[in-house]
């Protein structure tokens, strides 16, 4: 796998990381990348579920009843 190239701007850096991660997904068994993806997503959802304020803000943002 090629090394991650630092971007000259934040946007370029983020896109380089997207490409690097896609190459990582291609180069590694599904269980390896998905374990890392699960840690990220599960932590985000756990945090969102615990945070009642965030849920209220989310519903307000979407124009839905609270």
């Amino acid at each position, binding site marked *: 796998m090629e090394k991650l190239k630092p971007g000259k701007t934040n*946007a370029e850096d*983020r*896109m380089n990381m*997207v*490409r690097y*991660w*896609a*190459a990582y*997904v*291609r180069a590694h*068994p*599904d*269980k390896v*990348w*998905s*374990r*890392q*993806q*699960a840690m*990220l*997503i*599960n932590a*985000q*959802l*756990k945090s*969102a*579920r615990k945070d009642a304020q*965030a*849920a209220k803000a*989310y*519903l307000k943002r*979407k124009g*839905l*009843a609270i």
Partner: protein
Amino acid sequence: MRFIDSSIIAVDKELNDLDHFVLDFAAILCKHTSYALVSGYVAILLGRARGSEDVDVLIKSMSRKTFISFYSELLDNGYWCLNGDDSDELYPYLTDGLSLRFAKKNEAIPNMEVKFALKPFDSATLADTVAVKTSGGELVITSLERQIAYKRVVLGSEKDMADAEHLEDIAKGNLDANKLRRIMKELQDGKA
């Protein structure tokens, strides 16, 4: 990840909580109508390293009677609708081309954003799908070519461009370049 043919992808991934949520919902939905998962979750299912608050799903239009049966099964399985409680009030939202959001009781996130496929591009999306086989069951997504084209031409935010880039990269060698060009042109010309 294995691209078995143009209509089947097998992913032997460790399922995350979002995947479990979608698989659970889709298992109910598919009993009532056909569907295609679209937008950000398609990229996430296939490895993109980001989360999402909502999962977009296009469904084939259903009658009021079928909707009531579907909604009732959702309620029985611990879901609620964020847009209202009464099926008579909810169904017209769908027929008007609006979406309904469903989450697990006492939660708002994550939610499934359900929309009838009423526009020509939506109908074409439902007719152009890929089955993704996981250890927790099968999910139906829109074809990657259609997803990439829509994200690049219609949506176009930094997040959408990143999703499109991810899909192109992971599916390198497995995309139909002519099909991708055709759909992009249709979208650019406003024909879709």
